[in-house]
């Protein structure tokens, strides 16, 4: 029987992956951040180059491992490595970016094979900064997906928001049809 779970957090740069992992991790997160390039500096001071890593300790020495992918596409060579052995994907989309709907589509396509084998839950962040597009616009795009994907407004700093997102993923995995 598997002892540990591995969950991948992904999404564009600045969407809150590092913050979200920090919010629910039981341990100090390991982060490999470096100073952002000029094009990113207006958004955040550092950006994750390789990965973030956090742990949720469970009963009987079992653990949930949380891995965050780097947000910049130029580092996407790490993604396939990171998702190996992953049980599911948490996708965070930054609603304040120029085209967040396109961002969501990009990541759903990029991780399409992985999602097909597992499950995904989507959190839309920074809706307090930009209230549009609204969730129903994301939902309209998700109607093309064969599955009913959890999609919530999320504040990555708020543990309960991140917790609900991760729980929706875990419950989806628990009830998934045998395929």
């Amino acid at each position: 029987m598997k002892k540990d779970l591995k969950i991948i957090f992904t999404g564009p740069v600045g969407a809150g992956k590092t913050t979200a992992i920090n919010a629910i991790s039981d341990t100090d997160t390991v982060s490999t951040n470096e100073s952002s390039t000029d094009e990113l500096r207006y958004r955040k001071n550092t950006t994750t180059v390789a990965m973030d890593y956090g742990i949720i300790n469970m009963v009987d020495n079992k653990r949930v491992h949380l891995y965050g992918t780097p947000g910049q596409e130029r580092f996407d060579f790490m993604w396939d490595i990171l998702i190996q052995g992953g049980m599911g994907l948490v996708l965070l989309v930054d609603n304040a970016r120029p085209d967040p709907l396109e961002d969501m589509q990009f990541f759903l396509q990029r991780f399409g094979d992985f999602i097909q084998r597992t499950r995904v839950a989507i959190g839309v962040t920074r809706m307090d900064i930009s209230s549009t597009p609204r969730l129903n616009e994301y939902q309209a795009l998700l109607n093309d997906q064969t599955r009913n994907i959890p999609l919530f407004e999320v504040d990555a700093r708020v543990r309960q928001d991140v917790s609900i997102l991760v729980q929706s993923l875990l419950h989806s995995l628990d009830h998934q049809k045998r395929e």
Partner: protein
Amino acid sequence: MQARETTIEAPPVRIAALGIDERIRNSLRLFFHDSCKDRFQLVEEETADAVIIDLDHKKGVRLAQEQRQLHPSTPVIVISREPRETGSLISLLKPLKKRSLAKALLRAEAQAKEPQNLSSTLPSLQIATAPAMPAEESGDDVVMEGAPSSSAGYQIARHLAEKDIHAFLGSTPDIDTNSAQQQTNIRYDPNSFFQGKLRQITAMMKQKGQAVRLQFSDEAFIILYPDEEIAQINMSESRLGALSAVPISPGGLSFSFCDDLFSPDEVAADSLMRLDALMWKTALWASRGRIPYDTDLHRAVALDRWPNLTRLLLLPNTLEIAALWAEQPHSLIETAAKLKIPQRYVFGFYSAVFALGLANTGETMKSLDYIPIAADAGEKQPTSTSWLSNWIPFFRSKNG
């Protein structure tokens, strides 16, 4: 390209101060910096690892109760002029002393790192609003945790938590589906409650594209804004609950279209509620664990889409039911049997998603394969993933 270096961050423990004025907050900042070498950092509530609450503040007890309810695993330090029964919360007496405050902070830090020690024994808050008898003087004003679970405070808090669930989900026991009488007892007519009126008014409002004002008395009103899908609610939570829980007589609700434009700067943030959250809540109040009249208990239900559950009232097993219906349509009876939960939890959730128009019992669920299961077979979990089920409750207890 490889990562240049790996660093292990040891961030300060984030402390929020609730019900505490700016002057004291500044003192705390200084204390954290000078005496604690920045081991602690004052932050807003949303990002806190632990909180300090002044129980003498007019909202102090409520803040503590909300904190315990919303973030049961977050350590809480309460400060007060007089000794109070605070259960396992970390309690400090005023005036605060450096040593005792430092000890309390260290204790909160330790609890933040081992939250299961908190949540496993703390289903809800244990605070008496009246001062308790002073404890024996020990020369130390740090009151360590350890109020027995049979204490009066614990019992009262437990009772209040159950009352909250009762208000939304009722207390009806599981029904025998062969009993026509029991089947009748679990049904209600949404259209005769505020829930139904709200749905009708909202539909008209969206069609007209104009705000609607519902007036209940000189002071009490609700304004619905179509573009923002926001409700401005000028009445207490308990009055809204009472309004939602009893049938409204025909013509018993007056409303008018108005030219009000939503202006968030002029409205207190705590009087605003998203429209979907209002509809969800009023449906739960009306349903109290019952289902709309025409619901077929044995017909499979699917979710058209997930409700925005981070912004809606979350009741027991909500996420489990939503995930099940998103993955595999099940009837209401099958759902309760499969998840081994009271039927009223399923009925309440169904009524809420029905109010939002997300419950699908028709042909459009074609993308999901409905696999009927026998009622008795519903007790069994798929063996290949059922191990996950053992994890999720623990995860929930740790993370709220």
